[in-house]
Structure formats: structure tokens, C-alpha cells
């Protein structure tokens, strides 16, 4: 299921279970280089579980390839080293350390020279972080924390950035900012796998989309088509076409 043949991330027939409860069933997806792919779906559909399993935080059954390499035996740390990065739903910042140290640790595996360049890149993407660089991460606002979490991930120079609900709990103006930056990331050669409940914003920015429901993908295709799909429109975009019942 990979028409381009140059997928950066390829996930095939993946199952994730919490004990006996399967939270993700037979899911396959791929992300090509320089592509923004989104997974949309309601709360509890299994989106976060899927991302965590791809990152290696949760065990999964199935095949996961990253840049052509089997990830089955890789720890989280090995996956980070390979260029896969996750900005988790709860951000997982180092709350009692300042912004600069958080970013510095984001580049933990990188050389000093690479870090200097990354600092500049992150500060130009998020000027707010530069203003707050001596402030503790725990004292930042929600939007700033999200920026810091993304900045910290970018310090590791990932090939694929997985974002879990970056807009969760943020003011609309900040959400717009974050989505603009996700667009800019692609321009700088980072692929993005975006999990969102805010389907409207996500579908606008993404190239392709998967719709997840109760642990399975029920639809996938170009983001424009998905956005135009009536069932998706009814369930996730919050409006119905008159006179037509959602399928």
C-alpha cells in the first residue's frame, strides 16, 4: 500500500493491545518524504495509542519500517537516533529546567556545531522561545509549552516529526500559528505525521489523511477528498449537508 515506493515510514497490519483490549486493529499507513499526513478521528479512536506504539513506547504486533529499516528491535532511543521523533500529547517537558536547557537536551545526541545551527532554526521558528529562554518550562503558557515541545523535538534534527494533538487546549490564534509552522517544517525537509481532533485545520494543511474510528482506519486518501467526504464532514467537521444523511 505504498504507491510512491519511497516511504519514510511504513506501518503494515499493526495491532496494539492493552491487555486483552485491542486499541488499534490491523492498521496500515505510510508517510513519504516531505509529506504531511494526518490521522483524524474522535477522542478514544486509538490515534495516540498508534503514535506511541510507532515510537516504541507501547509494544505492537505488525511491521514497522523507518527509512527502509525494520524497527521491531529498536528502543525509543534508537528510533530517535534514526530520525523519528514524537511530540507527545502531554508534551513531557523538563518542567523544572529552563527553555534553553530543554532545547539543549533536545539536541542531546547531536554535535555542538549542529546544535548551534538548530538553536537558530528553532528560535527563528518560535521567537517567543528566545524571549523566554531563561524561564522554567513549567511556567510557560500552554501554547509556549507546545512550541517548546516542538522545538525540543526539532533540535534532534528528525526526518519525521510525529505530533500528537498539538492544538489541544490552545487558543485559536496560537493554533493557527502552530499549523503555519507545521507547514514551514515541510519546506525545510521534515515530514510530519499529525494526529488531530481538530480535523478541519489538520485536513487543510495535510497532503493525505487517514480517518480512524474505534481502532481502525475507515477511510484514507488525499486530504481534500477526505474533507469533502460527507461522512467525515458530518462526524468530524461539525456540519451536515442539508437533505443528505451521513452514510
Amino acid at each position, binding site marked *: 500500500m505504498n504507491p510512491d515506493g519511497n516511504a519514510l515510514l511504513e506501518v503494515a497490519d499493526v495491532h496494539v493491545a492493552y491487555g486483552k483490549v485491542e486499541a488499534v486493529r490491523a492498521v496500515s499507513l505510510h508517510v513519504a518524504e516531505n509529506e504531511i499526513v494526518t490521522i483524524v478521528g474522535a477522542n478514544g479512536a486509538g490515534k495516540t495509542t498508534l503514535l506511541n506504539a510507532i515510537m516504541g513506547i507501547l509494544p505492537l504486533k505488525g511491521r514497522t519500517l523507518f527509512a527502509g529499516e525494520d524497527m521491531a528491535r529498536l*528502543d525509543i532511543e534508537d528510533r530517535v537516533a534514526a530520525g523519528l521523533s514524537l511530540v507527545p500529547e502531554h508534551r*513531557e517537558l523538563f518542567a523544572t*529546567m529552563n527553555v534553553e536547557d530543554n532545547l*539543549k537536551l533536545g539536541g542531546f545526541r547531536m554535535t555542538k556545531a549542529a546544535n548551534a545551527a538548530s538553536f537558530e532554526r528553532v528560535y527563528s521558528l518560535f521567537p517567543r522561545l528566545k524571549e523566554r529562554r531563561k524561564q522554567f518550562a513549567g511556567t510557560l503558557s500552554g501554547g509556549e509549552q507546545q512550541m517548546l515541545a516542538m522545538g525540543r523535538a526539532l*533540535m534532534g534534527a528528525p526526518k519525521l516529526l510525529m505530533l500528537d494533538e498539538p492544538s489541544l487546549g490552545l487558543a485559536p490564534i496560537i493554533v493557527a500559528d502552530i499549523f503555519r509552522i507545521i507547514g514551514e517544517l515541510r519546506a525545510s525537509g521534515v515530514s510530519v505525521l499529525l494526529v488531530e481532533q481538530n480535523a478541519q485545520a489538520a485536513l487543510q494543511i495535510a497532503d493525505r489523511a487517514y480517518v480512524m474510528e474505534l481502532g481502525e482506519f475507515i477511510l484514507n486518501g488525499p486530504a481534500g477528498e477526505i474533507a469533502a467526504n460527507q461522512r467525515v464532514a458530518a462526524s468530524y467537521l461539525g456540519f451536515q449537508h442539508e437533505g443528505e444523511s451521513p452514510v
Partner: protein
Amino acid sequence: MNTTIMLFLVQDGITNGAIYALLGLALVLVFAVTRVILIPQGEFVTYGALTYASLSSGHVPGTARLAVAMGVVAFCLDLYAGRRSLHRRLVGRAVAVNIILPSIVLALTSWTAGHPSGIAINIALSLMIVAVIGLFLYRIAFQPIAQASVLVLLIASVGCHLAMQGFGLVFFGAEGQRAPPLSTASFTVGPLRFTGQSIAVYVITAALMIGLWLFFGTTLTGKALRATAVNRLGARLVGIRTSLAGQIAFLMAAMIGAISGILIVPITTLYYDTGFLIGLKGFVAGIIGGLVSYPLTAIAALFVGLVESFSSFSASNFKEVIVFTLIIPVLVLRSLAAPAVEEDKD
């Protein structure tokens, strides 16, 4: 009690308190990074002290051989853990750290035992031996269960303490030992007599604390350890290996324990099981610091030292009782002040 006696007691209390402070800091460090309550901290003290004493009297301490044996076990564990993706770098690293490192230490120790050697060499060797044991202790006993609950880790910790104490009896015998002091110089200020050893205790404690502060505040490795303590998942997501952070924390705790041991063995006779009680007093300080605060732990340790010296003067039969009773009001206050903390499951 007159002023002179009081000054003596204060001096004594601060000397002991400095040692407890070092141990308390090591406990806080290990707990923050690995969630292990390090009961065997006291064994690091005994091992350091008695290894140094053995070396000073020209024997090869059993701890050097223990380090090699633990290295072999750690090597097998490393190979087993990496069995599905054995590549040359992994095996090379495992051989270098687990086999070559302790072998070199043992070789150096055996060679030194045959030649009269200075205090500095004996101290350096003792530190190396105990540091290596600390590293392997984490690799063997705690790394395989690193994700377990605090309670499971505590039980493993008690097991390590009992095992290491047993080994201590085998290696060093039941007799107490003393070792030569770092310096025999002394001077008097008013009624107080300062020995070179007690000055060494103050200076080395202060230097270690400043060193730790710089390490955690300025180096990337130090910050990575703090990051692991603050947010384990966050640390893993930026590529900091929890296992490596744990090994470094244990290595540092073992070194600190050994330094404490070497500092006190010229002052007091140490037995194979003395370390436990000394470690417990560091633990009292650590608890007063909530197992998170370094400065509070250091201050609490001085307080513990003072309470101990004053109670050993006025109620010597009850001195341990009084010191350990300190924990109860602290725990009550802390449990009243702090909201219920759920143990994080990651």
C-alpha cells in the same frame, strides 16, 4: 555542660554531619534518576573504607575480585539483552566495560599489593574498585527491572544490601579495621583541636558538593541526568538512555560512598556491617529533604550529625533512637503538607 564541651560536640557533629550529607546527596541523586532507594549505600562506605584499609596493609582486597565476577555477570546480561541485534560495536562496548575495565583494576590492585605504595594510589584504587562495583550493581540488579514500581525496586535494594554485607564479611572478616589518615597534622584554635583528617573531611565534602553542583548545572551529562529525574519519558524521547543515566547515577553514588568511607576509616574503627547504620543516617537526611532537595538534604545531614553528637553525650544509650525518631515528625509534617502523590507509571 560547659562551652568547651559544647564546642567539642558541635565540632564532632559537623564532622559526622558532613559525611551524612555526602551519603544523603548520593541517595537523593540515585532516587531521582532511578527511583531506587539505595539501601546498599552503606555497603559502598564499608567497601571503600575496608578496601582502602586492606590495600594499606598490603593485601589484595576481595572486592577487586568481586568486581571482576560482577563484570562477567554484567557481560552475560548485556549479551543476552542484545541477543537479537548483536553487532560488533555492542559486543566491543560490553567487553571493554564489563571485562577489560575490572580486569585492569584487579591487575593494578594485585601489582600494588606486592609493592609498597602511597596513600594516594591506595585511595585511587579503592575508589575505582567500588565505582566499578556500583556500576555493575545497577546493571545486574536494577537495569533489568528498571520499569518496576518503587516498592519492587526497594525490595531488590534490600536484597543487594544483604548480599553485599555478606560478601563484606567474607572479604574483610568480622574484625574491625582502621586505616592510616590522610594527614597527621593538627592545630588548635582556642580549646578546639583540629586534626588534618577532620579538615580533610570538611574540604573534601565541600569540594564534592561544589563539584556536583557544577556537574548538574553546567555539563550536558549532568543536565541529562536531571532531565531523566524530572521526566523519564521526555528524556527517552530526546534519546537519553535511562539505563546509561542509571549506571552513571550508581557509579557516582558508589564513589561518594567510598570517599565517605575512606574519610572516616582513619577516625573510627569500621566493621563489615558498620556502613548500614551510617547509610541510614544519610537516609534520614535524605528523607528530611523529601528525597528531592539537595540543599535541604545537606542541611538536614548537619542537623542529624549535631543531634547525634549531643545525644551521645547526654543520653548515649539512646543516641540511635533519638536520631531515627527524627524521621517521625518529619514524615507526619510532610504527609500533612504534601498532597497525595500517585506513583508515576511509565
